[in-house]
């Protein structure tokens, strides 16, 4: 739970300044420092990173609306613009998971 929260907060903060892949580094670093097992690290990062993106996307949609989201869904020929939310969630979640996997693998290697 602590790892999950740490990744959630820190990955959200760094992405305000750094590119999207900074969350991969955050997940790796924190998994290295606080990961208990592969499952624990990967699952924490998967959920934390996914929720950061999903949450922020929902926040924007709440305050600014969905006009661009709808157009992008049409551009990508998606049947519904709501699919962009799970797509963004999965994308960030996978990014975080790969990072956590790498971070925890380094930890294991050094033990």
């Amino acid at each position, binding site marked *: 739970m602590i790892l999950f929260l740490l990744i959630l907060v820190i990955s959200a903060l760094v*992405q*305000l300044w750094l*590119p*999207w*892949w900074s969350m*991969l580094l955050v997940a*790796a670093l924190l998994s290295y420092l606080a990961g208990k097992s592969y499952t624990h690290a990967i699952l924490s990062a998967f959920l934390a990173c996914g929720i950061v*993106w999903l949450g*922020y*996307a929902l*926040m*924007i*949609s709440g*305050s*600014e*609306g*969905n*006009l*661009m*989201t709808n*157009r*992008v869904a*049409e*551009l990508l020929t998606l049947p519904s613009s709501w699919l*962009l939310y799970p*797509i*963004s969630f999965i*994308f*960030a979640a*996978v*990014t975080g998971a*790969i*990072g956590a*996997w*790498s971070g925890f*693998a*380094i930890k*294991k*290697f050094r033990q």
Partner: protein
Amino acid sequence: MHWLRLFLPLAISLLFVYAMNSRIGALPPPGKFFSPFTGFWQNNESGVVTAEEINITGLTGIVKVVMDKNLVPHIFADNNHDLYLAQGYIHAKYRLWQMEFQTHAAAGRISELIGERALPYDRQQRRFGMAFAAECAEEAMMADPMMKEALLAYTAGVNAYLAQLKTAQLPVEYKLLDYQPEPWTTLKCALLLKYMTYELAGRSSDLPLTNILKTYGQSAIDSLFSGTPYVVDPIIPAGTVWDFTPLPVPAQPAGWISEVPVPEDQPAPHPDNGSNNWAVNGSKTASGFPILCGDPHLGLNLPSYWYQMQLVNKECNVSGVSLPGVPTIIIGFNEKIAWSETNVDADVLDWYQVKFRDNRFDEYFYDNQWKKTTKRIEVIKVRGTDAVMDTVIYTHHGPVVAQGDKELMDDDFPKGFAMRWLGHDPSVELKSFLLLNRAGDYKNFVEAMSYFSCPAQNFAYADVENNIAIWVNGKFPLKWKEQGKFLLDGSKPEHEWQGWIPHGHDPHVLNPARAFVSSANQLSTDTTYPYYINWSMDAPRRGHRINQVLEAGTQLTAKEMIALQFDNKNMTADYLLADMIKAVNESALNPSQLQQLQSLKNWNRMAEAGGTEQTVFEAWWKKLNNAIWDDELGKEGLQYPDADITLTTVKFNRNKSWIDNKNTPATEELPALIHQSFIEAITDMEAQYGADVTNWQWAAVKNTHINHLLRIPALSRNHVSTSGNQGIVNATGGGHGPSWRMIVELGKQVKAYGIYPGGQSGNPGSPFYDNMIDPWSKGLQNELLILQDANEKNAAVIATWTLKN
């Protein structure tokens, strides 16, 4: 195994980041694009505008930007520098991507953004000398202190916005194509002006006409390609006495016809480019003050060409539309005067046959000696691959566009010919707009006009002193009659342009007896005008209709004028429908054909969105045109005569040898062609849209669409249901039409109305991206907010921004 457990995840991490940070085919890098921190999510916009304080380096005082409910900014500044700096800043804030993309397009730099497939387009822009033209214009503009100040301040404003722009806030098109904006320059302002010049004065029919001359002889030219309108209703009223002593016109040299075998491709003069404007003086209005109206017709794009603004400082208080990328208001009004432009279509682009000494193109023959060419090396950067070099050969006439070796986008340029184009000459149209924005009377207006050279425009003018005027205005070469109608000989000095028509001799009229002025791209003058401007201009169908309505009008108000801009009377049908119906043999029709003919008999000749008669008439008219001309003039490299000639041919049953179909042994007569065309039109309609005529509604068949500049359907509007068509006052066709409609009622307190098919924001994620399309499609207009003071209380104001250093 131990090592693999380490390296597998690390390798996957690296690969994943690399792959997801790169474009996948035409798709943007998914990592950047889907991120709510930087990607498309950030371009969602609620449209709520709140008061802001913005620091901008370079401002000398405080600038107030008052935003109204249509997102129109009203800029109040102390001086010209601050005014144009703020204008540049606001243009960039709302239209950055469009301004940069259009200047990239002008300069032939699209391959940089989208790769090799834009090379034929870019190469053509380079060969056309677009950057060369912009450089000449920039130099001329920067030599004048007034223009220099405006351009430098405007450029600083755009760059101030760029300096503040965060990645997350980049317009979505940058994210889609994955590139970054570059700093704005004064050259880009010039490029944008040349982009418009090319749109409006970058075409000629010299090549197809030469082909027709060679194929069918002088008699074909005389009967089909000479400027005799079906209805004579010139812009400057017939009989106007010229207030100048004309210069002698150069003598026409002995006949010379280019021997180059030319037929290549169907040429592409844009038949839809047209516009309307008019002004009525107080004797015809309810208020006793003039009303001026204008609606320029252009390709319908998103974001729109135009951006509405009010610009106020101690020198001016001017409202109307601006072109993002250029300082000033281009069509508009201030407290004293109003103006609007339509295109003249002057013949200012001619082709010269050039004889080169050898295939190194170093020298060419001119005036009995060999003259050196200059060469300009163009480097076209191409995304994803090496840059392409192209050498453009310049003679003293201008660049050789088609060298015959490499692929250009259009294939209708005479090969090996040099292009003489007025757009290449140094010019200062910006000065005209700076002066117009500040003009207070007719004298100021005429002075402003004297700086405007290309693309020549019909400027309608009205002022609060009850003067109305129209100038067919531009720099016109002093030509012999019809010089440059055909290809010219580049080795003979007497084939060149011989000088210029003095500005005071441009066709114009002040306060004509009929109490109104108007233009709709038709012939400028009657035959007494001593100079040659072009052999053909648009058929006066729109002009004729406008003049009929204005002639009859009394006690006119904005309401009637708004209706006239949305007038859908099909004048072609008005002229010919009765004759065409008479030629149909009703006993040979089947019941559905008979029913359609019956509807046409009862038709009020209005091209309404929901009607089917316009659809049927249009199909019939097209069939008839093809039936008359296709056998002789449908071949590649030739062209049909203007609509005028077809009107005359059908109305008076002239040109019988052309009516006959050369591909059949029989001799066809006009009534038979009309009858047959009708049956074919109905048959085609039934095949394409089905037997149920409710599917034949004009708006559905016409399908007005407003495409995003990148032609991405998700960013475009398709199926806009609206009336009108080309050749009709409401000239809304499929992808072309009134790009801005404006009505100005002058008076003690000026009142104005306007609308354009788009919205003030260039962001497709904003409700202000396309919010004016629906009211525009119904012919509605917004009352324009005109503020006297930044602190003025008005219900239409939604927020005020303070800009300061």
